[in-house]
């Protein structure tokens, strides 16, 4: 993989002072994605699937092409299993609001879920009397299969885990988890916001029931996302939001809903975004996930080795960078994480995330105020990793 060649695809990297290590929050976009979006606005800015004119035909075709790209990206069985959303959060909320739950049903999540995979379930518990149970992870952040197995019982209706943690980059053993859940009669949802951009996905091999991810973390446009779900489940689920484009017909008294995915895609969609998302997954597939993972590991190793000797620095997650994907999260006792991140930006334009990364529950339970997260992607170089290390060492000397 030629990183320098890849970097030329990203207009945001034209400024040599830009060192972007915040891809876990939002990735940069290659020109091909921007072009795909611009093409829509410049050449066929119309509605999909409604009008009969040639603009409409073109945009309908492009949106369907994007859906097919996503089938290939996920290895889904059919395009009807791909529901376009605005982001992972919307995908999870869609399931929480439309899957049939009854009082006493148990939902399992881990102890380090993003708020997007915590708050919807808390709300569901309040509204429908379901029970939310937390599966503790090992002290190093890796998944505790024993603890999970102990909590699996017939009342567990849904297991909803983050596939790869945005906190520490740890990826859970999804296949084993799903197998155990299905043996228990439970459904499984994976929050794939952090895994979809970095690893080869195969929803059929995983046999996962629901799989949600965002476009903005995998080089796609902001405000785009996908919920994959098995078709049978989608058929059973009631629509989440309703209105235009979700029905075949309506009377003053009732409506005749369209089959999935249309019944879940209410209102005029972000066609430019969807087309851009299709371009993004194609771009990623061209590069290849083996190369992506190999590169991220090299970067993570360089950063980990470089900073682990810094006095007072503690990693969040396993010590082995191979278990953390492209994410390195750390904190230094007594030093505000925001200060470190701001200084990195001020000193050399190095952009990292600081704070609690929307995993407040994990930080509160451990009495940690915040951390700095450096998340690498394919456009980061080893030189940038070294810059990050050098500047962190310098900051530690001063603070």
């Amino acid at each position: 993989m030629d990183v320098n060649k890849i970097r030329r695809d990203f207009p945001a990297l034209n400024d040599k002072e830009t060192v972007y290590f915040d891809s876990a929050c939002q990735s940069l976009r290659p020109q091909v994605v921007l072009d795909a979006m611009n093409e829509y606005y410049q050449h066929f800015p119309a509605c999909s699937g409604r009008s009969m004119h040639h603009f409409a035909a073109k945009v309908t075709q492009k949106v369907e092409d994007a859906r097919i790209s996503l089938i290939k990206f996920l290895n889904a069985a059919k395009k009807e299993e791909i529901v376009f959303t605005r982001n992972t959060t919307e995908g999870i909320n869609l399931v929480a609001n439309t899957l049939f739950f009854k009082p006493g049903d148990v939902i399992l999540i881990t102890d380090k879920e993003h708020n997007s995979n915590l708050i919807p379930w808390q709300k569901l518990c309040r509204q429908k009397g379901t029970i939310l149970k937390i599966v503790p992870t090992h002290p190093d952040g890796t998944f505790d299969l024993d603890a999970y197995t102990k909590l699996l019982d017939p009342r567990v209706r849904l297991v909803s885990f983050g596939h790869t943690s945005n906190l520490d980059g740890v990826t859970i053993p999804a296949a084993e988890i799903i197998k155990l859940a299905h043996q228990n009669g439970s459904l499984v949802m994976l929050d794939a916001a952090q895994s979809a951009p970095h690893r080869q996905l195969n929803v059929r091999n995983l046999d996962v029931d629901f799989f949600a991810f965002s476009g903005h973390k995998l080089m796609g446009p902001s405000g785009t996302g996908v919920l994959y779900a098995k078709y049978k489940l989608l058929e059973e689920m009631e629509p989440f939001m309703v209105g235009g484009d979700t029905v075949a017909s309506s009377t003053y008294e009732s409506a005749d809903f369209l089959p999935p995915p249309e019944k879940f895609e209410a209102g005029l969609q972000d066609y430019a975004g969807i087309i851009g998302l299709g371009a993004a997954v194609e771009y990623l597939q061209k590069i290849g996930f083996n190369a992506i993972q190999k590169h991220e590991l090299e970067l993570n190793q360089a950063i980990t080795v470089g900073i682990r000797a810094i006095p007072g620095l503690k990693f969040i997650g396993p010590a082995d960078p191979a278990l953390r994907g492209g994410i390195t999260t750390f904190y230094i006792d007594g030093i505000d994480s925001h200060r470190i991140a701001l200084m990195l930006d001020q000193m050399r334009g190095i952009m990292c995330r600081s704070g609690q990364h929307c995993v407040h529950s994990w930080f509160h339970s451990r009495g940690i105020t915040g951390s700095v997260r450096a998340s690498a992607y394919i456009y980061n170089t080893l030189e940038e990793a070294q810059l990050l290390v050098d500047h962190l060492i310098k900051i530690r000397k001063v603070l």
Partner: protein
Amino acid sequence: MFCIVAFIVLSILGIFSAANRRLAKEAMDCVFRRITFRPCNTGFDEKMKAKILGKVIMRSEKLASFINKRFEILAWAFFVIGMAALVMSVRGLVLFYTTGSCNGANSEAFCVFDPTGANNDVSDLGGTCPVVPKTIENLTLEGVDVQSFPTRYANGTGKKIIFIGCYSCDYSRATYPLITKLAKRYNTPLAYLEYPVKLHSDYLNKVGYCAYQQEPYKYYWLFNDAIFAAEKSQIEDQSFIVQTLADLGFDMPKLQACIADPATTTVVESQMEQIRGTNFYGTPTVFIGDEVFVGPKPYRVYAIALKGFFYWLRK
């Protein structure tokens, strides 16, 4: 403490930049929380500290370390300096308003509101007298028989204005209309003490004296007003003076006789001696009550000395 310092500094910088205005608003929010005894949880101070350290560390790690360790102390120091500067600025502003100089009455030290020092310029006595130290401490009216000098609105009330001026001096010419306007506005006695700083206007001194002797009420003052209103080149021309006096209806032969009379010379020299006895060092010098102003001050300065800070409210 840092929030307060930042608020002051950023508010000033905010005049010139929108980015600083945004930061100033953040600082204000932080200050507001502090003064209402709530923690400043806006992250503003942390953000600014990081920004400052981020800049400094690239130049000197030692300096960055110093700032980091003593950030609060430095903030306090800046606060104290800032407050002192603010107090000094307000004081300077008030002094400028009341005396025409930021540093107190008649001070020639630099004043940002009067950068050229125009309010303290004087027509120096120069070669006409021994060099007089430029200090107002020695200025006094003791030994001056003010009654013997021309006085306008003699029946007026309140503090008396004593104006030592010079017909041909620019600063006196600038000040005279202000002083006469003030005296008229508040019906205040105004004594005019002519001291010809420039030798070629010596003649006018005697003319003024004799004119006052002949008609001390209306016409002398009309003559005085006319001389101050005329071009400088005109008042150096004796024929213009004669014509002006004639036009005002003065008895010219009598006036000429008075001017030529050695007794007039004696009296005028005596008056000049009295004026020199005030230890003044240039014109205009204006005494209003216990205060004295050297140099051409703005109208408000004389008015405040006469009627107080809110002079415009007084009748």
